[in-house]
Structures are given as C-alpha cells and as structure tokens.
C-alpha cells in the first residue's frame, strides 16, 4: 500500500516537473542581449544524410563567423559521406560526433521503439555538462530525419534534470511544400523554433514559422 503511494507520488512529481519544464521553455522570452559583442555562439549541427545534410550545410555556410562557430557536426552511424562533406566547414575545434540511428530508411515503424531507445542511450552523453558547458553549445540545428527526435528527447531529459541546454532550431526541408515530414510533425511542439520554407506549411502546425527559402 505504502509502496503504491510512493510510486504514485513519484509519477505525479515527474509529470508536474515535466509539465513545468515544458511550460517554462515554451514561454521563455528570447535570451537577453549578449553581454559582450565579442562572444561567439556555439552551434551544433545534425547531419541527417543525403538531402538533409546538403541543406544543413548550406544553412550554416552563410553564418557570420564572428558571431557563430560550429562546435560539432553530429551524424548517424554509418554515414561517413556526411562527415566528408562537412569537412570543408569544420574548423580545427569542430567535433565530429557519431550517434546510433533511431530508424533506418524504410524501417517498419513497429520496430522503431527498440532502435529509438538504443539510440537514446547512445546519445544521452551529448547533453551531460562537462566543466559547466553543454557539449551541444548554444544552438542545436536539425532538419530531419528520425534521429533528430532522439536528440530532441535527450535535450528535454537534460532540461528536466535542470542542466543547461541549447536552443533547438528545426528547419523543415525545402522539399516539403504542402505537407510536413514525419519528424517535423513529431518535433514541432518540442523545438524552440520550427521553421518552414513554404507558405502553405505555415498553417500545418501552430508552431510553424514561415521565413521563406533559407537554402
């Protein structure tokens, strides 16, 4: 009986804490102006392979290097091509981080829970702060596919625990004109900025912001 009460109590606490953390982040105002104009922001970029990698690399290629540095390129296990392609944008301090895939291309959705959790265990180290710094930096940029959901889940676990986390920016692919991708649909309530590139998509999610063609 007492054990049941404890379990229920813990569950309630967890739900309350999760709800509070989520609410705080949804309502969070933009960060205050950076105190020093010389400080740069660290960006980590998830490369989802193929067209996702192409678009992600294009997006960061145009960033002002005096404000943004690329701290890390994160790629899925087995995607060495993305690593090669990122090399021209990688500075000497840029980390290349490999994480397990949440879902292989065309993997049946019924088998995804298992690979999702394996990927989660293999990715959680990315949100554990070291020497007060979060390995993912100030911004985590994602554009699909499924492994982004794992990254996002890890960031929320870190927020739940109270660790510092990056702002998550998701940019839906240029190829998505009238319908959102599956990862986009799942992630839109859970990222800090959900950007779409075509006006027709703005109405597909109340979190979507249409900012035109970014690629």
């Amino acid at each position, binding site marked *: 009986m007492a054990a049941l009460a404890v379990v229920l109590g813990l569950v309630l606490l967890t739900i309350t804490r999760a709800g509070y953390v989520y609410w705080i982040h949804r309502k969070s105002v933009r960060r205050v102006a950076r105190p020093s104009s010389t400080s740069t922001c660290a960006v980590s970029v998830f490369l989802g392979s193929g067209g996702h990698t192409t678009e992600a690399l294009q997006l960061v290629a145009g960033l002002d290097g005096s404000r943004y540095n690329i701290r890390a390129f994160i790629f899925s296990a087995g995607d060495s091509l993305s690593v090669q392609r990122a090399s021209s944008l990688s500075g000497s301090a840029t980390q290349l981080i490999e994480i397990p895939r949440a879902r292989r291309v065309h993997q049946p959705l019924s088998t995804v829970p298992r690979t999702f959790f394996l990927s989660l265990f293999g990715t959680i180290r990315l949100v554990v702060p070291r020497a007060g710094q979060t390995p993912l930096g100030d911004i985590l940029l994602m554009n699909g596919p499924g492994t982004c959901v794992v990254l996002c889940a890890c960031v929320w676990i870190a927020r739940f625990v109270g660790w510092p986390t990056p702002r998550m920016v998701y940019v839906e692919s240029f190829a998505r*004109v009238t319908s959102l991708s599956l990862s986009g649909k799942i992630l839109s309530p859970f990222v800090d900025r959900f950007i779409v590139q075509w006006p027709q998509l703005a109405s597909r999610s109340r979190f979507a912001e249409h900012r035109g063609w970014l690629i």
Partner: protein
Amino acid sequence: MSPRSAFLTVGATAPFDALLSAVLDDDALRALRDKGYTHLEVQCGKTQLPDLAQVSSAPWHTQRQGVDISLWDFKSSLSEDIKRADLVISHAGSGTIVDVLRLGKALIVVPNTALLHNHQEEVARALHERRHLISCSVPDVARAIRDLDTSSLIPFPAFDGSEFQTILDEEMGFI
C-alpha cells in the same frame, strides 16, 4: 544555331527507367534535335532496360535521330555535366533541382510517380507554378521539350543566408 547539349539525369537513389525510355524514344530525340540539342548526355543510374545492359561508368556512345548520345550510370558529382549542358532533364529530387537552378540552367523536371510516399511532386509543381522550371509527366516529356521556351523561365534566387542568420540572431539575443 550553335550546337547545344542536353543532360538527362535520373538520380542515384531509385531507378527511373520510364523517364529513360521516354527521353530515348524517337519522338523526344527528334524534339531535342529540332530545338538544336544535338548532343545528349545521360546519367542512367541502375537501369534494367535491355537496350542499356552494357552501360557502366565508362560512357557508351550511340547516335539516334541525329542526336549524339553518351550514356553512363553514375558519377560522384554531376556539376560538370550540368555546367556543360544548355538544357537539363531530371528526376524531381529537390537537391538536384536546386543545384541545376543555381547553375542557371533551363530545367525540365519529371516526378517519378512510381515512388512510394512521393512528395517529389510537391516541389516540382510549386517551382513550375513560379515558372522556375517546367514540370511534366513521363508521357509528356517530348511535348515539354518541343514547347520549351527558355526565355519564359524565371531565374531562381541565389543563396542568401541572411534570413537564417536573423533567426539565430533572434534566438541568441543579438537582435
């Protein structure tokens, strides 16, 4: 009219034999020749067409309907072939579309309707509506070539990273 060259690419991910057959058909080849495209470069990918059984990475040359044709299966980069072409006919992969349009080439795009969950059509149709390219179905390729008026195509905007930078600047409090 100075000799012009066309480039056909079916992509590297999925085969697209229907498009290959349509462009290598006499009708389409005559349309190309009549528009002054006397050379056709073809990236045919993994094809099962019996005619093309001997195609590999080494270009196989032939001539049909007055058009010199060069066929090969894959290359690590298509940018040289795109740059050399005056007209590109392509599958509707968005990466290829953007590459071709940014190189300022006239583009006829053919979505592969045999693909599952095909959202290739979305971007092809949207860009066709904005007149950046011509999108057509496989059976209409010859007609699209014949009716092509490159002067009516609107140039695709160059990459401008400022809006994306603005989004990050907003997040980081720079603005």
